[in-house]
């Protein structure tokens, strides 16, 4: 009897164990894949790795654009108990539309954005509310720590960190980071842990841009431009400062401007970069090109005087006048005093073919190739479409349009001995040891022979010494340049009285030019001549830039040392 009971018990136990083994087999072998997958879903979580976007530095290593992590507020509407009350609380703290937020929080979705990329005080305010269903997520935000400095060059990014303008747009593929992902295990308390063997895909941070822009020179240019626009009553202004020996852009400023941290707060037209996008008739500053063409054509006799016909000339029925009556002037005086009649005679003597070729070789009529988006080629009619009177107009800078960058680049060719260079803004790309040269000195053409360069430089110096550009003089340095006062033409209306673009473009010091600069003011009034309003701005910017760069003053000084009395605005301005 005893044994029988034992046998029954053992049998039952054995059956039970067999059932367990079968069940284990079913769970761990037959359904291994299914339960494995479920366990992974429950226990593992994929975390997105978002490396930062590349930083943009100026030439001295100052950060101009950086990415930092900030928090964004999101909601899980399925968990929000009282959408209306939650919306009211959040709208008050974040300044949002309460009704729209209320609708979002009532949506049949598990995730909605409330507000993205908040500042830390806003995040703390939201956290303090301790609202159910409301949480924060990390996101990357682009900051421009120096505000509007070089804004039109840098550009800006959208909410999802895509470059929308400027360098941020053009170099999007370079500065954008590559996201990564990492799988972590998650427990019942939603704590996470790394575990070997789980998938890790390291992201890659964006590459940094190292610019040629110098923050200090940029700041000086912007500040002087701001003052000039305000004092002259101009509606806009542009300054470009360049190293003529390398083509590196040291500063590029425009007014009005915007703050890329809050670009939507400014009108869309302020986001443009007029230095490369906007064209204007260069006026008398273009006489440098006419002079170069005449010298290359060997039609300039330094001893010969040109009859400027007391301020008026008629070319094939078109009457063109000077800003004041001139009699006979040498070529040097034609440039120094900016005689239109004299320039026309030089241009006609050079011949339309030579004139056109020289214009082209100085880079007009095509983009310079600078690494900035949406660069304009300017407006230059093909030679075949030139009217008979066109050479006359072109000779004194009308009937064609140029950008400020094209103009300063052409003067850089005179400054560096006759080479037209490709301007550039980005010098190097990369982080740490991977940093590499991106753009450097690149010669595009040789528009003028070195022997002609010397003569052009000398004549451009006359403009500043005793011509229309005396206010561009910088004590201690020899300066060469040209003033310009161009009438503005409007579509359908032609040239309008009282509307001018006043400009000055020049370089210093003459013996070894370190800086070339253009200043252009749009519609200054009542003073509107380049010598009155633009040349002093050039002097203010370039004087500081030369000192900052440690450029020694000229020994063959054209002005006495120490500093002479400041030159007063001359009546001879053009």
């Amino acid at each position, binding site marked *: 009897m005893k044994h029988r009971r034992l046998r029954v018990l053992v049998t039952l136990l054995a059956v039970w164990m067999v059932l367990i083994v079968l069940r284990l087999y079913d769970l761990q072998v037959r359904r291994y894949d299914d339960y494995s997958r479920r366990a992974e879903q429950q226990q593992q979580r994929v975390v997105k790795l978002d490396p930062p976007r590349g930083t943009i530095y100026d030439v001295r290593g100052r950060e101009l654009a*950086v990415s930092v992590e900030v928090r964004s507020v999101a909601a899980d509407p399925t968990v929000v108990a009282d959408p209306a009350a939650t919306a009211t609380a959040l709208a008050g703290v974040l300044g949002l539309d309460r009704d729209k937020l209320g609708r979002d929080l009532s949506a049949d979705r598990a995730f909605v954005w409330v507000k993205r990329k908040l500042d830390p005080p806003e995040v703390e305010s939201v956290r303090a509310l301790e609202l159910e269903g409301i949480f924060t997520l990390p996101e990357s935000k682009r900051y421009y720590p120096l505000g509007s400095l070089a804004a039109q060059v840098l550009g800006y990014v959208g909410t999802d960190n895509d470059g929308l303008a400027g360098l941020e747009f053009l170099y999007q593929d370079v500065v954008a980071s590559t996201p990564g992902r990492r799988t972590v*295990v998650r427990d019942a308390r939603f704590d996470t842990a790394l575990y070997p063997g789980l998938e890790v895909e390291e992201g890659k941070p964006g590459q940094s841009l190292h610019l040629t822009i110098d923050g200090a020179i*940029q700041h000086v240019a912007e500040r002087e431009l701001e003052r000039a626009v305000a004092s002259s009553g101009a509606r806009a202004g542009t300054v470009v400062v360049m190293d003529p020996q390398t083509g590196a852009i040291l500063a590029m400023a425009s007014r009005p401007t915007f703050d890329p941290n809050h670009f939507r707060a400014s009108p869309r037209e302020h986001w443009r970069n007029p230095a490369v996008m906007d064209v204007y008739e260069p006026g008398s500053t273009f006489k440098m090109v006419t002079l170069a063409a005449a010298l290359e054509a060997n039609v300039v006799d330094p001893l010969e005087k040109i009859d400027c016909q007391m301020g008026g000339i008629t070319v094939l029925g078109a009457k063109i006048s000077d800003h004041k009556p001139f009699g006979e002037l040498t070529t040097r005086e034609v440039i120094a005093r900016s005689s239109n009649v004299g320039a026309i005679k030089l241009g006609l003597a050079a011949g339309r073919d030579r004139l056109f070729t020289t214009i082209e070789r100085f880079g007009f009529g095509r983009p310079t190739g600078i690494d900035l988006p949406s660069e304009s080629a300017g407006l230059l009619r093909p030679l075949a479409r030139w009217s008979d009177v066109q050479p006359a107009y072109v000779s004194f800078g009308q009937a064609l349009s140029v950008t400020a960058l094209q103009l300063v680049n052409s003067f850089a060719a005179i400054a560096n001995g006759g080479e037209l260079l490709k301007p550039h803004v980005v010098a190097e790309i990369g982080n740490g040891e991977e940093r590499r040269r991106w753009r450097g000195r690149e010669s595009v053409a040789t528009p003028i022979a070195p022997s002609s360069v010397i003569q052009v430089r000398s004549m451009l110096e006359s403009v500043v010494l005793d011509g229309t550009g005396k206010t561009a003089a910088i004590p201690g340095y020899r300066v060469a340049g040209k003033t310009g006062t161009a009438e503005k033409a409007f579509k359908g209306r032609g040239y309008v009285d009282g509307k001018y673009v006043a400009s000055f473009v020049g370089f210093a010091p003459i013996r070894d030019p370190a800086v070339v600069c253009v200043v252009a003011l749009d519609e200054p009034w009542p003073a509107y001549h380049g010598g009155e309003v633009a040349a002093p701005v050039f002097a203010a910017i370039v004087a500081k830039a030369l000192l900052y760069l440690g450029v020694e003053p000229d020994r063959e000084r054209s002005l006495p040392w120490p500093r002479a009395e400041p030159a007063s605005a001359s009546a001879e301005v053009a």
Partner: protein
Amino acid sequence: MRSPYIVRRPAENIYLVRRRDRRRRRELVGVATAVVLVAAGLLAYTSIHVEMLSTGYRIDELSRELHRLQQEERHRQLQISRLTGPEHLENRARRELEMEYPTLEQAIFRSEVAR
């Protein structure tokens, strides 16, 4: 009780022995060894797994802390960039130190010092 038929002798239990079953003993040792080994193996695996998980938590925690500190440093760097920007410096220099831009006369060039 005294009796001539009762012989008193001290009990010597050493003569009472259980016969050893060597086979069963070997089986027992084998099973015990196997159980101990398996248990030790399971324990070792479990403790390694727990240790790994624990280390994983710690790594994740440190990783988040590192990330937080990096972001904090980045924010500080941002502040430094802003405070050392040319406009901010100029405003403070003018306002607090009453400084002005230097003139050419105030500049001393290296070549002049060398002479």
